[in-house]
């Protein structure tokens, strides 16, 4: 009996593990817990794109892609456990989808020599490839987002924010605090008053913050929220009749989940967008043919084309392109994590390439380098139409103010280098 049980366990493990020749790209997802509504569409988009490559192209460079999924519940400890449990599978790259998990994995990735890809989240100063050899966060990071929001407001105000009051309502966590330093510097540069308003996890009760906003009447409110905090903030803004067109969230506060609960009250709310959204891209015809209609979709299909699904697809597209580049550089299709890092560092995605991939005008072109792991950092603005229940892009890509960001990134990354005893590279 005991032998049978052991045999069953071993057989189960063999079945669950990817074949040795597969390109292993773990998906650290969260489909349970308080943040599941955000984690599910992202994970589905990520899985579906690789399922498409396997079904349509036979994988990448002839190698099938295996995407073992591990549930983190957006919990840092569980995320680290997932990393430890899957790194032995020959994992090429990790996309942890959590700033907290990313911070914990940065020193581990350095030792294990496995790259991290953290698009639009994680440690902002990882954009400095001189210090963060194993971390990549292109095409945009939090500080880019803060700067883009201010540049947009500058455009809206004839180039001056002098005397304006801008409040930041943020998730009281490492993630939510990321843009503060940038906004403080931008406030000095442009002469606006900057007010910080933290909201504790999970953010279901925000009456104090919105009473303060009602009293102080800031000209604009920026939001760095996640999960229920976003939906409650949008509802509270509607409750106090705050002009929604003056309320702008970062890209993690700009999904359908954040506005649908507030109904008509959310109309006009804006957010940053680092990629396009919706299903009006040729890629979706292939996804439909090879994945959805073939019964290989990751979810139940109701999230397809949503903002966070699109972001999951985008992350998978960038990783797949980096795999191709790595295979090209290494001269072999069966690459390892070190070669994958080389691919991520030499990656260039042009608009022509995005068109070939079936995603024209979806994301900004960028070229990584030894120094630049952060990309151009541009973002667009989108606005919610509550009647049509859809996001509409209202600007093109706006580049961030690198004059302000560059010194901040250098200072923060050099502090990390000194603390971790890292010798800077790319000289």
């Amino acid at each position, binding site marked *: 009996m005991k032998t049978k049980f052991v045999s069953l366990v071993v057989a189960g493990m063999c079945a669950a593990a990817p074949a040795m020749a597969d390109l292993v790209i773990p998906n650290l997802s969260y489909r349970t817990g308080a943040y599941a509504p955000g984690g599910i569409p992202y994970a589905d988009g990520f899985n579906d794109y690789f399922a498409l490559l396997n079904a349509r192209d036979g994988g990448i460079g002839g190698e099938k892609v295996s995407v073992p999924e591990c549930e983190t519940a957006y919990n840092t400890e569980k995320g680290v456990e997932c990393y430890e449990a899957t790194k032995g599978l020959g994992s090429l790259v990790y996309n942890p989808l959590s700033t907290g998990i990313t911070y914990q994995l940065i020193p581990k990735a350095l030792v294990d020599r496995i790259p991290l890809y953290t698009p639009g989240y994680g440690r902002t100063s990882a954009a400095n490839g001189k210090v963060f050899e194993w971390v990549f966060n292109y095409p945009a990071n939090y500080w880019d987002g803060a700067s883009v929001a201010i540049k947009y407001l500058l455009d809206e105000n004839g180039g001056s924010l002098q005397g304006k009051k801008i409040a930041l309502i943020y998730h009281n966590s490492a993630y939510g605090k990321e843009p503060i330093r940038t906004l403080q510097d931008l406030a000095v540069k442009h002469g606006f008053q900057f007010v910080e308003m933290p909201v504790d996890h999970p953010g279901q009760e925000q009456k104090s913050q919105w009473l303060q906003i009602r009293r102080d009447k800031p000209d604009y409110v920026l939001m760095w929220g996640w999960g229920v905090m976003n939906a409650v903030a949008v509802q509270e803004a509607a409750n106090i009749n705050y002009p929604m067109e003056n309320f702008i969230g970062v890209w993690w506060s700009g999904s359908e989940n954040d506005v649908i609960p507030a109904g008509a009250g959310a109309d006009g709310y804006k957010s940053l967008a680092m990629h396009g959204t919706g299903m009006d891209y040729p890629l979706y015809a292939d996804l439909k043919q090879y994945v959805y209609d073939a019964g290989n979709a990751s979810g139940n299909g109701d*999230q397809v084309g949503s903002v966070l699904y699109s972001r999951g697809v985008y992350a998978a597209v960038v990783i797949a392109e980096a795999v191709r580049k790595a295979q090209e550089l290494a001269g072999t299709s069966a690459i390892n994590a070190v070669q994958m890092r080389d691919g991520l560092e030499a990656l260039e995605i042009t608009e022509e390439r995005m068109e070939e991939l079936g995603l024209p005008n979806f994301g900004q072109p960028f070229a990584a380098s030894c120094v630049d792991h952060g990309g151009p950092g541009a973002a667009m603005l989108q606005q919610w139409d509550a009647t049509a229940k859809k996001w509409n892009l209202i600007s093109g890509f706006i580049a961030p103010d690198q004059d302000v960001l560059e010194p901040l990134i250098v200072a923060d990354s050099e502090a990390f280098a000194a603390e971790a005893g890292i010798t800077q590279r790319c000289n």
Partner: protein
Amino acid sequence: MPEQLLYAMEVTVNGLMAGVMYSLVALGFVLIFKASGVFNYAQGVLALFAALTLVGLKNGQVPFAHVINAILGTDLHTFGWKLPALLAILLTAGVMVLLAVIIERLVLKHLVSQAPIILFMATIGLAYFLEGLGDVMWGADIKKLDVGLPQGISDSIERVTDRWFGYGFFIDNLDLVATLVAVALVASLTIFSQYSKQGRALRAVADDHQAALSVGISLRFIWVLVWSIAGFVALVAGIMWGTKSGVQFSLSLIALKALPVLMLGGFTSIPGAIVGGLIIGVGEKLFEFSVGPLVGGATENWFAYVLALIFLVFRPQGLFGEKIIERV
């Protein structure tokens, strides 16, 4: 009147309203603890489960659709009907009663005479089970809950206060409804426990379940009854909080807001849950208003617990809890 004072008054009123919302969650804990001495860790998840079920029934969503489709290769999502809000609420209340029966049959019945800590551990397991069941039954996506409750600023209160003080107060219509509901709920529960046969039986079990058993009161019936009432209270809390933020899995975390209320008001007192909620609501809002700006804000979560701890030092049983003296 100085504007700061008027603003403090507005914060106080809103604190009272927030306190009522906390009390709605705390009431469920009190009912079960009062009747069985069990701290029901699953109360927050019961609110989530009730809200998920309500939205699912109202929108005609097929339960377990994801599983059914995966097994049978079908493409089921909805039944194609939309139920009126009241009917959906009644059906959900029925589901919560059914859930109470199942919990009694499958869990509580087997744990009679066990130490309270064992029952507490069982409710932890129940919480995780119900969270998973809710996910599999109704999906983890965020859902809008609209049962016709008004939301947004009360224009009449803003107008009146503006006329009186020259400063229009913000009061959310949803909070006003929650207050009325809480008053009705407490009144009904008090009348039920004082004047009905079942209510008296419930109190007898709460006082001494051995003695209650000896006079023929069915402990199993009382457990089903009290879990049903707690399920109904969870449904009310789920409606209020779900209307506010949409129905999503973080709804179960509202239990965290109820704990300091219970510590302050006492685990066995229904009025205590209300008064405790009001004190916590006002206390945390005024502290955030006056001290928050000096310490970087976001004080509400921890201050509620500090306030409860201070009360605990002076009244360990809470404001309205029963003082238990055990003599050896």
